[in-house]
């Protein structure tokens, strides 16, 4: 059974078209990027507004007792916020493909469109590829767009204090262009595998969304001062997810044949 890219692209074309017309899903997809961008800008803004507040220094010392006396606590906290927030930002490239892929795979079953689709010459591999592209392309595009808005926003609010552009920095640029797509692949893979086993999009979404918890948990660790985020830290996360991606790909190739997609038909 040859892999025909044209058929995979047909699936991508259809899903993308369907997504563009799915206003409800589009709205829920836009809420997350909005939060991801506005919250850190708001935090940076508070630091910039009261850079000399005495409490800022105690907070900064909590995270880094070696902070030199002359250093600006506000500047330190802004840098820390930017570094830590990247961990939170990664929730977006994981979660958006989960929203899309659950809809598009379990949704086909729920709306009984899977059977005619599988009766066409499309193979399971082409179907999964087309659907994954339809989840990954918008997710990565949204992540990158949010990143641009984030950089501009942070630079504008931070300017009065730092008088230079803080963003994009090396960590974020590398993270958004290399690590975020790996996370998107992960979210999509989980959603596709789960969607193949359940019959409702909502259930697929809820189960898949559980993978966001460890990410949020790690950010919690950073805020609590237990984990210290930095380039190496995110690189390690990226490496772990790369391995998980490879496992998911292997599992999808092994598990997703037509009959298994069909096995949940009533």
């Amino acid at each position, binding site marked *: 059974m040859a892999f025909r890219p044209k058929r995979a692209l047909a699936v991508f074309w259809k899903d993308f078209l369907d997504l563009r017309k799915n206003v409800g899903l589009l709205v829920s997809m836009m809420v997350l990027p909005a939060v991801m961008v506005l919250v850190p800008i708001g935090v940076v803004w508070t630091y910039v507004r009261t850079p000399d507040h005495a409490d800022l220094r105690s907070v900064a010392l909590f995270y880094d007792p070696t902070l030199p006396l002359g250093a600006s606590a506000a500047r330190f906290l802004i840098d820390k916020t930017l570094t830590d927030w990247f961990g939170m930002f990664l929730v977006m490239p994981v979660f958006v493909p989960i929203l899309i892929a659950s809809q598009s795979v379990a949704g086909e079953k729920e709306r*009984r469109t899977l059977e005619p689709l599988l009766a066409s010459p499309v193979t399971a591999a082409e179907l999964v590829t087309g659907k994954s592209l339809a989840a990954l392309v918008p997710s990565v595009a949204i992540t990158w767009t949010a990143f641009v808005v984030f950089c501009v926003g942070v630079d504008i609010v931070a300017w009065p204090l730092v008088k230079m552009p803080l963003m994009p920095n090396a960590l974020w640029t590398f993270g958004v262009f290399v690590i975020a797509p790996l996370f998107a692949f992960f979210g999509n893979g989980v959603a596709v595998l789960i969607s193949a086993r359940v019959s409702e999009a909502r259930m697929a979404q809820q189960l898949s969304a559980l993978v966001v918890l460890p990410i949020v948990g790690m950010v919690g660790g950073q805020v609590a001062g237990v984990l210290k985020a930095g380039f190496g830290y995110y690189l390690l996360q990226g490496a772990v997810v790369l391995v998980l991606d490879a496992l998911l790909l292997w599992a999808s190739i092994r598990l997703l044949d037509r009959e298994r997609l069909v096995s949940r038909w009533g």
Partner: protein
Amino acid sequence: MSGIHVQDLGKRFGDRVAVEALSFHVRSGEVFGLLGPNGAGKTTTVRMLTGLLQPTEGEATVWGHRVDRDGEPLRKVVGLLTEQPGLYDRLTARENLRFFMKLHELDEAAAWPRARHYLERFGLGGREEEPVGGFSKGMRQKLAIVRTLVHDPKVIFLDEPTSGLDPESARTVRDAVAELASEGRTIVLCSHNLAEVERLCERVAVVKRRLLAMGPVRELRHAGQALEVRVEGEAERFRVALAQLPFAPNVLAEGPKLRVMLADDAQAPDVVACLVGAGARVHSAVPTQRPLEEVYLELLREGRG
């Protein structure tokens, strides 16, 4: 090799047997009916013949393609109208059709005239740009039929094409099927609607998990002949005598009338002789054909378990 050849086909889901020992043959250009009650295994059979489900026993070929291993070439020559139309509600009728043209890697410029012909034929002309979500049940079913035809399939499987439609829509769909048949297409029609099968199909297989009977509709009716006998007085009392006959026919008695089911014309004289021997005064004995429905229900009763 054209046509459909099915040999000892079976499918079990876990330890539930959905289909067993099913054998039949459909000629090229024939309209073949699969008739059976709910849960008889019609949909399962069609799914096996379109490569959606792997048979657990036996084998089948459709247009020379083995259903268990030639999935891709098989699906290029078959068209399947599924039980549910399965259309994408947010997409327009045109986009729905276009998607399947792309999946079949068709040259769209060449495929559209055929699609448009059927759209016109089914009264959907001019509605192409509307989202399918706003279509009525009948319109959806007709659009799903057009979708089944976009790649000009050699064999068309129609799984209950008229179920859930109002009489008028059902009729347009039936007319459409008749038209497809007149184009010389090979069609397998699943149904539990006897009138529909009788009108559209040349031959039918009555199934309930396994094959109960098969043949031209005419012959099935023939298999269901009966002798209607009018006697004097209550007919009921001759039931016992008739049960003594070597072929022990099924008998219905109502007032002075007896309805004796026969496997063969030649049994009629024996029935009359038996009744006379039992002391009946026979007024008339008329051979009749039983309605297909009665034959069908009897087949199902015999095939129970």
